[in-house]
Every structure is written in C-alpha cells, then in structure tokens.
C-alpha cells in the first residue's frame, strides 16, 4: 500500500513569546492567546525551511518534488525546483508548486499518493512550509508559526495512506491579491462558525463515512488550531473523545500553515502504536481529511528540542515590518549575476565541491586543479550533508547584517575540505574553536536592484538540549 516512507520536520530554533507581542503592540487580552510561536530566523523563508526538512528525509531518487506553501518566496521561478536543486536531485524529475491555501499541502500529498498508487511514480517528495507575516499585533501574526515538513510518499514504511476526502469552497476568510504582501481577513466569528468548524467537520465526517469507520476506531484525530477555545469542539461534535484529539501545539509552535498537517502526523507517530488509525485534516478554502495507519514511530520531539527566544523587536526588523537603518555599507549590494548562478548551480545551491580522483582530497569550492596534488581529474563531492567543526570564527560589527554582529568562520568538514561560511542560529559569545556544526540552507541576501533572493549554505552550531 502507498504510504509515507520517510519524514523530516524542521522547526526554526527561535520562538516569539505571545505576551511580548501583546505588550509591544497588541490589544487582545494577554490571557486569550498564551504561549509561544515558532519564528524563522532572519535568513530563513519557506524555501530554506523546506530544504532543511527534506535534508532529514531519505529523498534520493525521487521522481518528483511537490512544494506546498502560501508564502512562496518567488511568484515566478519555480520554488519547488530551487528546493530540488538545493537537494541535488538532478534534472530528471518533475517539480510543482502547490499554493493558494493552507490546504495545498494535503492536495500535494493526495496527488503524490495517487501518482504512486497509479504506478506513475515510485517516490515523490512532498515539502510544505510557511512563514506567514501578519501586520504587527494582528491575529494572524500571533497565531501563526513558521515551520516546514517533508515526506517521501512511496512505500508504507512509517505509515500507510488509506483514504481521503476533499471539500473545496471559495471561502474568503483570508486573502491576498497579487500586488500585496500582507493578507486581509473577514470577521473572526464568521470564519470560525461558517468556515473553520463546518469544513473540517464535513471533511472528517465524510471520510469516516467513505472508509466506513467510526470515531472510536480512530486512535488520533488532528487538525489546525485557529481558535483555541473552539478547537476541540469540532472533534467532540463528531463523537471523538478529548483523549483522541491531538494537541495542536498551538502554545509551542502556533499554526504553521501548510506545514501543520504533516507536523501533526509526525507528532502523532511519535507515540502511536503500530496499526493505529490516524485522521489528519487541513484547513483553507475548504478542508482535506486524510486517513493513515501508523507503522513505525517517528522522533518528533527531537525537532522542537532546542529553542531560543527571539525578541519581538528583532522579529519585526527581520520581517521588514520595521524599517531599520542599514547604513551606506549595507546599501551597497553587489548585483546578482544570474548566469553565474546557473553555471555553478550545484556548487552554490547544493554545496557540491570536488574530490580528487587521484589523491582523494575533498575540496570546496569546486576546483579545476587539485589543491593537494595538482591533478586535473576531479569528481563532484557534496558537502551539504557533512558534519563540520569551527576552525576559527569572528563576530563582525563592521560587516552589514540585519542581525549584527555578522558571525562567520572557517569550517573544517569531517572527511576533509574547509571553507568560510556564515554561522547562524547563534549569538555573540556562544562559539568556541572546535565546536561541531552542521550545514543549513539559508537565504544569503536579497539583491534589491535585480530583485533576487540569493540562497546559500551556512553553518549552524550543534546544540545539545
């Protein structure tokens, strides 16, 4: 049976404290929405988070990459293909962006499962990520969280996919036209009562009917939490008990948009018994409900183990909701040479260097002449998945960074090779020579003249929780 072969969850290291948002700009009672939400670092977006999630999957040799998000960094230039290139998946694949609503992820998942079931593909990587930006103090900002998830749809290793039911409505609860960066919403009470509760209820109940199972035969049911007080009412009204409802992680992550249904699945699989039946529903322009059967456990908690507080003022500066001074040095951004990026796409986006066929020395960047033996016989060698150590580092207050100081260093890779990289997800005073790091795909910069987001790899210190 078709199922989930492999899975990766990526939650950014940072959290916003909702109380701090209220204290800074909010007008909603502080008791109403407690807890934290996940926040992407200044150099993260939906693409980078999706790549980081997919790096945790066994995703070699997939036939297609589907990417679901309502926060696609590019409107034109396919986002899924940027992800595929960063993962070094080669060009013999099909790629597609699924967008427009926060149920795009289940649409992508169901499509992938159907392709595999039909024998048209063996394995498909489905990535989902969101990094939704609301106006400071808005409900959207407070309830949303930033995260990514990736699954390989193929054999039923972690879980099987048993059935689904889709309901689709043109329900304008939240919308954003092509010219806008920030979304508009209609009244909450209307969204809650006419859309959220009804659509999820309809999708789950029709799925139960279709599969001919009763709520008591389901181990866990999960769907996103938009309104904490009304959240459990949906499942309770369908005949589920409180214990069957999966914690939506609202006070830990927030609603992570397209990533959320897969994050819920991962959280359930952590504690599921083999053959437990699971229902996951998405929400947005309707709802898709999907039924799974658990096969193996998944170490979900690992992905939320390390967390740090991000000051709200930094968050609004990073998201460019607060225009901060960049200085004349910061304004000098070198124009992006797109044809150079194309020629060196594996080297830049996939962190592929070279290894000497004569002496075996790995080297980055890619070399024409071996640095160790001067042989000209070299082969591609990927560094993105190699562990590294900090050889040296600095905290640079002269270099422009939206998150000063710019922290960078020379990284030595296990197995050979070294280069200098930005070091991210760390604060001044935390680094030491010799500290272990892993590589993480990040937004390197934005070229405001050529309108290009540039991506590259940075080092992230491994932190023991």
């Amino acid at each position, binding site marked *: 049976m078709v199922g989930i072969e492999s899975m990766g969850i990526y939650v950014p290291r940072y959290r916003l404290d909702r109380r701090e948002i209220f204290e800074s700009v909010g007008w909603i009672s502080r008791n109403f929405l407690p807890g934290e939400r996940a926040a992407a670092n200044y150099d993260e977006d939906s693409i980078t988070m999706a790549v980081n999630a997919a790096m945790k999957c066994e995703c070699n040799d997939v036939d297609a990459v589907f990417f679901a998000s309502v926060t696609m960094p590019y409107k034109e230039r396919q986002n899924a293909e940027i992800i595929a290139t960063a993962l070094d998946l080669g060009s013999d694949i099909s790629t597609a962006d699924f967008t427009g609503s926060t149920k795009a992820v289940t649409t992508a998942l169901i499509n992938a499962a159907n392709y595999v079931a039909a024998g048209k593909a063996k394995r498909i990587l489905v990535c989902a990520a969101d990094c939704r930006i609301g106006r400071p103090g808005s409900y959207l900002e407070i309830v949303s969280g930033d995260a990514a998830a990736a699954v390989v749809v193929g054999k039923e290793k972690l879980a099987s996919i048993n059935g689904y039911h889709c309901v689709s409505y043109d329900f304008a609860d939240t919308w954003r036209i092509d010219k806008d960066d920030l979304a508009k919403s209609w009244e909450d009470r209307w969204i809650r009562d006419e859309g959220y509760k009804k659509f999820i209820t309809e999708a789950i109940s029709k799925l139960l009917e279709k599969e001919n199972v009763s709520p008591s035969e389901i181990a866990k049911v999960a769907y996103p939490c938009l309104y904490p007080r009304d959240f459990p009412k949906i499942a309770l009204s369908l005949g589920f008990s409180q214990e069957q409802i999966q914690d939506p992680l609202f006070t830990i992550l927030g609603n992570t948009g397209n990533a959320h249904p897969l994050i819920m699945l991962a959280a359930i699989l952590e504690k599921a018994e083999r053959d437990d039946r699971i229902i996951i529903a998405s929400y947005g322009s309707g709802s898709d409900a999907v039924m799974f059967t658990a096969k193996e456990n998944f170490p979900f908690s690992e992905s939320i183990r390390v967390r740090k507080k991000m000051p709200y003022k930094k968050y609004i500066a990073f998201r460019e909701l607060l225009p901060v001074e960049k200085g004349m040095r910061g304004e000098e951004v070198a124009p992006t*040479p797109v044809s150079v990026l194309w020629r060196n796409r594996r080297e830049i986006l996939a962190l592929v260097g070279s290894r000497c066929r004569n002496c075996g020395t790995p080297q980055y*960047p890619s070399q024409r002449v071996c640095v160790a033996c001067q042989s000209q016989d070299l082969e591609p060698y990927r560094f993105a998945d190699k562990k590294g150590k900090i050889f040296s580092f*600095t905290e*640079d207050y002269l*270099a422009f960074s939206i998150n000063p*100081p710019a922290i960078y260093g020379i990284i030595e890779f296990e197995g050979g090779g*070294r280069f200098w990289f930005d070091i991210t997800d760390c604060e001044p005073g935390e680094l030491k020579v010799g500290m272990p790091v892993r590589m993480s795909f990040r937004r390197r910069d934005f070229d405001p003249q050529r309108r290009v987001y540039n991506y590259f790899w940075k080092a992230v210190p491994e932190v023991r929780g």
Partner: protein
Amino acid sequence: MIRDKVAIIGMGCSKFGERWDAGFEDLAVEAFNEALDDAGIEAKDIQAAWLATCFDEVMCGKSALPLANALKLPFIPVTRVENFCASGSEALRGAVYAVASGACDIALAIGVEKLKDTGYGGLPEFGTVMGTKNRLIFPNVTAPGTFAMLATRYFSEYGLSPEKGKEILARISVKSHRNGAMNPKAHLRREITIEDVLKAPIIAWPLGLYDCCGVSDGAAAAIVVRAENAKEYREDPVYIKSIQISTSPGEELIYRWDGVHIETTVRAAERAYQEAGIEDPRKEIDILELHDCFSITELITYEDLRISRRGEAWKDVENGFFELDGEIPCQTDGGLKCFGHPIGASGLRMVYEVYKQLQGKAGKRQVEDPRVGLTHNLGGFPAMSVAAVCIFGIDKD
C-alpha cells in the same frame, strides 16, 4: 638575485589622514614633488612609472591614465598594478626590475589611494571586488573580521585567555601610537594606554577599535636607478637587498593551514633572506616596518619572519623587544596603525620610513645607526594572501 643591483635615490610621502581637502591628483602630486626634490631630478627625467592603486572604482578609475594625467608624464610607459594591500610593493618591484634589466635608467614607483569618499567607515565594501562567483558564496567578510579569526585561533592554539591575548595585542598598538605621535605625517598622532585599547568598542571579536589600523588617504613614491649610478644623485642612496612576493594558491582556506601563521609571509621571507644573504634575521635586521593592518597581524608576522619563535612572539612583546629603544624597533613611524592604510600607498610608505631611518633622517624617531631594514606588505586575507617582503641596506656589499 636583485641584491645591490638597484638603489633608491629619492622618496616622497604625503601627509596621511582623512584628507577631505585632497583628491587622487593632490595626493599623487604631493608625494611626487617630494620624491623629485629628494632625488634632485625633474619630472622629465623619469623614463617609466608604476602606479599602485587598489580601489580604483571609488577614486581615480582604472588603468595608469589617472597617474599620467595627474603628473603630466610625457607619453612614457606607465603601468598600473594592483595586488590588494601589497600593491605598493608591486609597483616598487616593477620599477626596480625595469632599471635592473637596463630597459630604462630612472623609474618611478608611486602608490596613491583616496579611500575617504565612500561615505562610510572601513574599507570600501568588498561585494563587487571578490569576483562574480565568490560574491554568491563568501560571507560578507571584512578585513577586521578575517584577521580577527587569526586572533581567535592564536588565543586558542597557545592557550591565551581572551583577556591575556587582548592585553598582548594592546601593547603592540600602544607602542605604535607612541611612535606615531612623533611623526608629523601620521594620521593618528596621539599616545594611547593599554586601558584605552581594552575599553574600546569591538570591531570584530576579539579585535577592538585600537587593534585596527585607520582608514586614510595618502600617497608615497620612490625613484630608483641602477646601483652603480646611485652616487651620481646622492651620497646616501638606499640599496635594494631583496624584493620577494608570494601569492597564495588558496590551500590555506580550502585545504590545510594551522590558522596561526600567514604562509605567504613565511615563503616570501625565506626567499628574501636568501636573496639578501641573511641567515639569522633576529640578529641581522635593525628595523622593521610590518603590515600591522591589525595588531594580531603584527604579532603573527614577528613569528613568520623568524624574528620571534613560534608561539612566543607575545613574550617578545611583553619584553619590549620591538619598542623604539628595543632590540629591533618596529613601526618606528607609527605603522599602518597610525598612518592608516591607503591601500596602494602603504607598501611604499613603509619603504619611506626605512629609507629615512637608514639615512639617519628620522628626527625624533631616529634609531641608532641602523644598517638593514625590512618591510612587510600583506594583501588579501590571512587564509588567502599576497605577501611582499623587501629588504633594504645603506651599505653596498
């Protein structure tokens, strides 16, 4: 072997500083006029010239035309050279090799850099100067940041606590400021204390403000002839004992390196000692002008030049070995620390001080009877550099 084949017969050096009053042309003319007067020749006597500039984009533009235009050099061959911060030494090498070969009899080497028109502190942004691919993969490195990584590594390798390490580095800057305060041509002419250095804001950890050289405008020039003709121009010409340049093939950054030395300095120095016939530099060299773009660079260079033993330069610093009254006075003019670092000019500015010291014309800063002096001019980053080591003597063998 270039030893004793060429001599410097005239030098000039502009006032260094934030020269809001002066552009490229003003600085070039200021240094050139002094060099002509010093050599006792006229502009028309110059047969070929080499111009060193680095950031042409933010000042004079490309090629040697800006120099030929500024000085109105009469259709002679003029060449512009650029090798990052070692450009000044490259210009000298071009001029020295030209007269040594007999291709011409009198040649000019001049370095000019007008940095203070960018609108911000520090060197011009590196974004466009590193190449189109590197711009997509390098961190936003700055000069202090890349040299700071040497200090991070040095402290770690030799077990110096950050406090102890920073104190050693502070002594280097305090010494240079003491010398620079006596030099009317220096940019920063104020003595400082160790406490000033330690309390200054961090620029790139662990380097603070006083661990970094200034950013200045300036120019320096040298006029060279074959050694056998030198005494026709003056009694006290200064002889070129060696000019060596080493350029990194890139292995330090991507393959192997201990991170506590600069390989190009080591290579250039060894070749320079051989060319100059020096066996024990700690005993045979009388004065040093090193590329102290940052205090840590000076510390490490003591070791790379074999003046101090590996990992022990900090002990020499503590013992005052490099002070004006020490065994080998270093940065007698104040160094890059007090002159600042107008890139193309610095290599020749160092030669200017050695030249004056060897002639006994360094005024209040005069060292007692120096015979041999060394300049070290470093370009690029510790992990990927160009080093020039030049040795000069007042005596011809």
